């Protein structure tokens, strides 16, 4: 059932510098996760994307980028599904 989703996650993980990937549903429950992404962070990732959407409610959901010295986390909502990609900075 989730083979297609797993394929997408594998594809994302094969990209350079990506060390984690997480997909969550609108309830903040994890649908798929791999690498550095922790299942428990699904709720917080969806909450961050929800808050970001409130900045400009009429526009399409923004991509949120959380950055630290060594890592980057990109959060994007597409319809009801929210995805997060964890990357190592080059």
């Amino acid at each position, binding site marked *: 059932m989730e083979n297609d989703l797993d394929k997408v996650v594998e594809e994302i993980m094969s990209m350079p510098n990506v060390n984690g990937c997480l997909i969550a549903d609108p309830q*903040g*429950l994890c649908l798929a996760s791999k690498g550095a992404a922790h299942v428990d962070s699904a*709720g917080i990732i969806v*909450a961050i994307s929800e808050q970001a959407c409130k900045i400009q409610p009429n526009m399409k959901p923004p991509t949120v980028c959380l950055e630290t010295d060594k890592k980057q986390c990109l959060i994007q909502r597409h319809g009801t599904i929210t995805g997060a990609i964890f990357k190592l900075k080059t």
Partner: protein
Amino acid sequence: MVDDLRKYLNHLLEKVNGLHCILITDRDGVPLVRAVTERAPPLALRPNFISTFGMATDQASKLGLGRNKTIISMYSSYQVVQMSKLPLVITFIGSDNCNTGHILSLESQIEPFLKDLEVVVADAP
């Protein structure tokens, strides 16, 4: 101590959209600390509703999947998330579209405060 915890729970309530209340009770549903907004359904705050979790978690633990930790109940307009922290039970009540994952992630933020409460419940006759 309880006042500080109540303040902290109220702070957590504001952080999660659609979360109506957080209750910390004992196994029988007797409330120890509660943070409630006016949107919380009064019937769900009664001990006879909360105490049903004790039986449900015991039965769920017999499914052969290990000890039951959390039960999420989805209703038409509310969701109830109950966590077993024996001898305590944490109950979250939110709207049906509230972020369930965010509620589950509050567990780790409440857990450090439970040690002192556990002692109080364990010492009670």
